[in-house]
């Protein structure tokens, strides 16, 4: 009698059926029920929300600012002087606001664009509050009709209409999505035809020496986080989620599967992070 054998491929799907029939997924390296993942991720970010910038600085030794500057400069965002329609940007999982405000500042500085709108969207209200607080402290983009702050799940974006955005940016946020293909489909939905999907995320390190150095750093990081910031679990989750995220080519094919064309990527700093882009047609 033929007994079907579970192939190794299907046994290792990212979302699998557990013994009780409940759907499970990865949270870092733990297996958790799917419904719980966004809540657990929420806890991680709630606890680090107020020190998010410090944590980013610690994790990347301050280089994340260079990456983000390059990210924005490469995008070259802004309504051109000879154009009549302002651009609509959306920055997903960008609660702290660094990319969102960076884009608006760049557009103003380079093209004199003061009309383009920005939706700052994050699943975690604490992170969003930090972003709005920063806007309030710097006196720009706070109580501004151009900038909207909304609590949204990146996989649904239920308050954002379809075909309404020129540029969708996500910076160091997509690896925390429970279901990345769904997040890419939501991006595809909200973008106008001709709109750009633009993503900055950690990726696979190409250089073996840097890889070894990074692994030692990643092993030491949770303890430093625990001694200095009293938060072992958040840093542990972060290094594990970086490891789980697909590499450059694989993520490129995932973006293509979601329906984007002209998909490409650029590795930064030996592949520590990568910018992926795609165009909706």
């Amino acid at each position, binding site marked *: 009698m033929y007994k079907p054998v579970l192939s*190794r*491929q299907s046994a*290792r799907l990212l979302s699998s059926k557990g013994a009780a029939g409940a759907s499970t997924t990865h949270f870092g*390296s733990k297996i958790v029920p799917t419904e719980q993942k966004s809540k657990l991720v929420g806890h991680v970010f709630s606890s680090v929300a107020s020190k998010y910038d410090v944590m980013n600085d610690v994790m990347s030794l301050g280089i994340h600012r260079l990456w983000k500057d390059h990210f924005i400069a490469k995008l070259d965002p802004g309504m051109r002087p000879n154009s009549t329609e302002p651009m609509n940007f959306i920055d997903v999982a960008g609660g702290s606001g660094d990319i969102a405000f960076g884009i608006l500042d760049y557009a103003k500085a380079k093209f004199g664009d003061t009309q383009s709108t920005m939706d700052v969207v994050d699943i975690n209200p604490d992170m969003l509050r930090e972003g709005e607080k920063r806007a309030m402290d710097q006196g720009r983009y706070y109580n501004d009709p151009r900038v909207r702050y909304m609590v949204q799940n990146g996989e649904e974006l239920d308050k954002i209409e379809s075909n309404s955005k020129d540029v969708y940016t996500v910076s160091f946020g997509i690896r925390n999505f429970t279901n990345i293909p769904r997040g890419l489909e939501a991006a595809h939905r909200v973008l106008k035809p001709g709109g750009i999907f633009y993503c900055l995320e950690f990726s696979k390190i190409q250089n073996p020496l840097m890889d070894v150095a990074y*692994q030692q750093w*990643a*092993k*030491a990081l*949770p*303890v430093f986080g*625990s*001694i*200095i910031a*009293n938060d*072992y679990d958040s840093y*542990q989750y972060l*290094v*594990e989620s970086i*490891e*789980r995220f697909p590499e450059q080519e694989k993520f490129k094919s995932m973006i293509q599967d979601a329906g984007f064309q002209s998909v490409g990527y650029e590795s930064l700093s030996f592949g520590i992070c990568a910018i992926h882009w795609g165009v909706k047609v």
Partner: protein
Amino acid sequence: MFKPISMRPVATQGLSSVKLHRVQPNRSILLTAALTATVGELLVGKTARMADAMDRGELHNKNVDYETEREENIQHRINNLKNTRPSTPNYEGHIPLYTTEKLLLFAVSGLRSFFHPENGLNIVQLGEATAWPLFLDSMKRTMLSDPTGRRILREKPNVTTQQLEMDHLAEFPKDSFGYQFYKWCKRENVSPDTRAPVSYVDDPLHAYIFKRYRQCHDFYHALVDMPIVIEGEITVKALEAANMGVPMATLGAILAPFRLKPIQQKRLYDIYLPWAVRTGLTCKPLINVYWEEMLTKNVDELRKELGITLPPDLRTMRAERKERIHELNQKYKQMKMESKDL
């Protein structure tokens, strides 16, 4: 049609005399040719290059499951990231540390506590960094040698607001310890939930003992009626140091006064520190008190049983001094105004 090299004709005068001279063979050409013929194939030949490519994973081999290998690689790296601790956790929230990491914790928290003792996190970490097994073992022995201590270790009570039912304490008789504790909490604006969990102590029972010590700190405050100002904290720390030998309390009681104003130091050195040391050394071990059961007890009785006599009230002393300084300022303001009139 090769003539042997050694027999190459060399042209001299005229064709009639063709001499055959021996010519030295060109060694570098010979060597290169030999090496190329033998070893070259092994180093840069086609099969060698293909083998290198296969090693790097660039040569497609349909017998290898690349997906599996990739997943296994990722899993291996994640395991490396997970297995960074010297041992598995012994209890919920335990973060085992290597010795170097413990020293780093001690150094960092020590420096931070010295410059910012008002930040609770620093004190908490310093407490755990100095909670050496020697001290915790002696605490355990103290608890085990007393029936109430043994009961505490068996039942492992946890001090939280619900457990204590803080609101009910307001209705207790005025001279009960529970009511005094409630009044003290309200006056100092603290609640019993403000105690952080223990993470760096390795043994679970030691971790519970340290957690109990941390949670009972507020009870000690209320028992001797010390406010949470820095002088009051130093006094209670000195009491804990003398009574239970807590290393961090000893450190705090010795070093912290250096950062105080002279009048505060005088009060401490003259009145409160001697009182704390005397009381701590003579009273019963406070770690053995089952505070949750003492809430209904008369507070004076409790103090007598434990062997504690109250020191002069710190709040009153500070208030009195403030009042005297205020009067002095008023007097001089008056005098200045009068001298202007002259």
